[in-house]
């Protein structure tokens, strides 16, 4: 064991298979990965755990379909050092503009292969694969 401190990642999506795949992939790359399915669960975790990076779906279980924006707002207000990526299959230009205004670090269209997401994550965290 190297003894290096693992970088912490939080992945939020309301589809369990996506969370499973992301956890497997990023843990193999050396991240410590937590997963959440609900906006409020993610916000609660972010209030008590310091994450290096958050990857969230724009649309979570909720009535608005843009719960990911609330997460971006939460991260920027409460954990300014944390990087955040939003993924979406439904994002309009207006939503993307709002996400960027709130301070998202990346707004990605789904489907996005995990290796491509990883490259963006590494770029944001200033590390190499």
């Amino acid at each position, binding site marked *: 064991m190297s003894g290096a401190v693992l970088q912490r990642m939080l992945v939020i999506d309301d589809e369990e298979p996506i969370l499973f795949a992301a956890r497997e992939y990023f843990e193999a790359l050396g991240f410590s990965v937590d997963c959440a399915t609900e906006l*409020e*669960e993610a916000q*609660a*975790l972010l*209030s008590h755990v310091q994450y290096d990076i958050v990857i969230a779906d724009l649309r979570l279980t909720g009535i608005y379909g843009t719960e990911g924006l609330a997460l971006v707002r939460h991260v920027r207000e409460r954990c300014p050092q944390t990087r955040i990526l939003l993924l979406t299959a439904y994002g309009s230009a207006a939503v993307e503009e709002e996400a960027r205004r709130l301070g998202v670090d990346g707004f990605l269209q789904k489907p996005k292969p995990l290796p491509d997401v990883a490259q963006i994550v590494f770029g944001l965290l200033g590390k190499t694969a």
Partner: protein
Amino acid sequence: MKDLLDTILEPGGLTVHFQPIMELREEGRRLYGLECLIRGPKGTNLESADVLFDYVRRKREESLVDRACVKAALERARELPGRPHLSINVHASTLGRDHEFLVFLGDVADVNAISLSDVTVEIVEHAPPWDGRSFLGALEGLRRIGVRIGLDDVGLGQSNYRMILDCRPDYFKIDRYFALGCAKDPYRQAVLQSIHELARRFGGRVVAEGVEHTEDLAAIQAIGIDLVQGYLFARAAPLETLLESGLLGPDRKSGAPRVPDAEAPA
């Protein structure tokens, strides 16, 4: 997909731990009571109490989950020998909004053969004011049925002077932030002294939480605070661990369920 809230509320979703509250006397320490502490569903992010209750507050389901916590705690406490005094945490918002909570508490205590005079409701609050009139009415009701009132996290957040005035607590629970390192910090000692004096004038007692070092304990004791809780004495632990520890006394390891007084053998 199943909502996390459903997972919390399903049977076995909540786990109860107990942490001893010790009383410091000239002749030594003795067990004064037990705080019932809840953990969320095992293997989930909500297993941590901090994350669990943060989630619950964000969902605005304090009342529903407080009821589940009280039920889980008193059902488990039923197995405690020796009728120790029990502290259970309840959100102020639950007392303010859930008009049937007192009846619920009475019923659960009754079913589990626990006297309400053995129960302290520790009020926790993380939100600005709620329905103040209902809250004050609930406090009055709790006192009327024999329950004692504790105010959690005194000195932090919403547990401020107004809450102290409104609650007139029997127990002022001071957050660990003030106890940790107080032996070497005269300013922390000043705050502890101040709250101790305030409690005395209200006819209440202070419980210092987060006591982890003997030197801090000595400083706390020198101030006159005689109820303490923290790792120095015991961590929060499941009932089985508590029974094994012997903290409940040498004759209290059986864990035999208590029976109502009226049914107790002569």
